[in-house]
């Protein structure tokens, strides 16, 4: 049963990932990206935040569909060579890799209720990175607003 679900979600994720990079319309790409994240069970932040952001960017920028007839740029051959090299190197590493790290303190039943364990360690031993990440999100928010606003100001002045 576990294997069945793994293969189902894995095939869905891979197929939708290939569709993300191969369809013409970026709106369709965004929806296939949602499917891919759905398969990886990461819905909570992606559909809420990132997908809306991507769709806003596509719609605000008014990139018409007719501009998408040329999808790939002129450096396709070196890019394909790089991808093939990466495929070989990473494939060898993945297939021949072995775990040598010692097992951690959490056994099977502790991992089954991992929300509780994650929450506890997030608010105790990882409280400092947690705060840093919240500041980082604030900086990203301000940075995004400043980046978009400053272009607007220059346009108005000129």
């Amino acid at each position, binding site marked *: 049963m*576990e*294997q069945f679900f793994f293969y189902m979600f*894995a095939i869905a*994720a*891979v197929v939708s*990932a290939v569709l*993300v*990079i191969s369809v013409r319309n*970026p709106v369709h*790409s*965004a929806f296939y*990206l949602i499917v*891919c994240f759905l398969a990886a069970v*990461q819905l909570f*932040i992606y559909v809420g*935040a*990132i997908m809306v*952001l991507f769709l*806003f*960017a596509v719609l*605000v*920028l008014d*990139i018409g569909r007719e501009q*998408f007839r*040329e*999808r*790939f*740029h002129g*450096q396709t051959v070196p*890019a*394909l060579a790089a*991808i093939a090299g990466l495929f070989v190197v*990473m494939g060898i590493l*993945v297939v021949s*890799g072995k*775990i040598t*790290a010692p*097992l951690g*303190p*959490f056994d*099977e039943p502790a*991992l089954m209720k*991992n929300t509780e364990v*994650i929450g506890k*360690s997030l608010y105790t031993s990882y409280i400092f*990175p947690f705060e840093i*990440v919240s500041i*980082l*999100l604030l900086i*990203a*928010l301000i*940075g*995004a*607003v400043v*980046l*978009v606003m*400053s*272009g*607007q100001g220059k*346009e108005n002045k000129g």
Partner: protein
Amino acid sequence: MALTLTHYLVLSFILFLVGIAGVLLRRNIIIVLMSLELIFNSVNISLAAFSYFLQNLNGTIFVVFSITIAAAEAAIGLAILVAVYRRRQTAYVDELDEMRG
């Protein structure tokens, strides 16, 4: 045959390669940013798999942090994209070549 770590690593590997292919091959910056999200996703899968199979929850904590940072990265990337598109009226990576030597 039960599910092993290699299954998850191969899945993560395939998604990572698809993301790299999207970053390297596509012209449109929006698709490139989406492919970056695919790469983040594949790395998160492998981190979660390592966390489960090594019975150590640090990997899962890292997944939470990396999802947050991916959200910040997407926001900044799209803001840069909007600013570039306003100045240059193009969203293609091969037309943004001022820094070519």
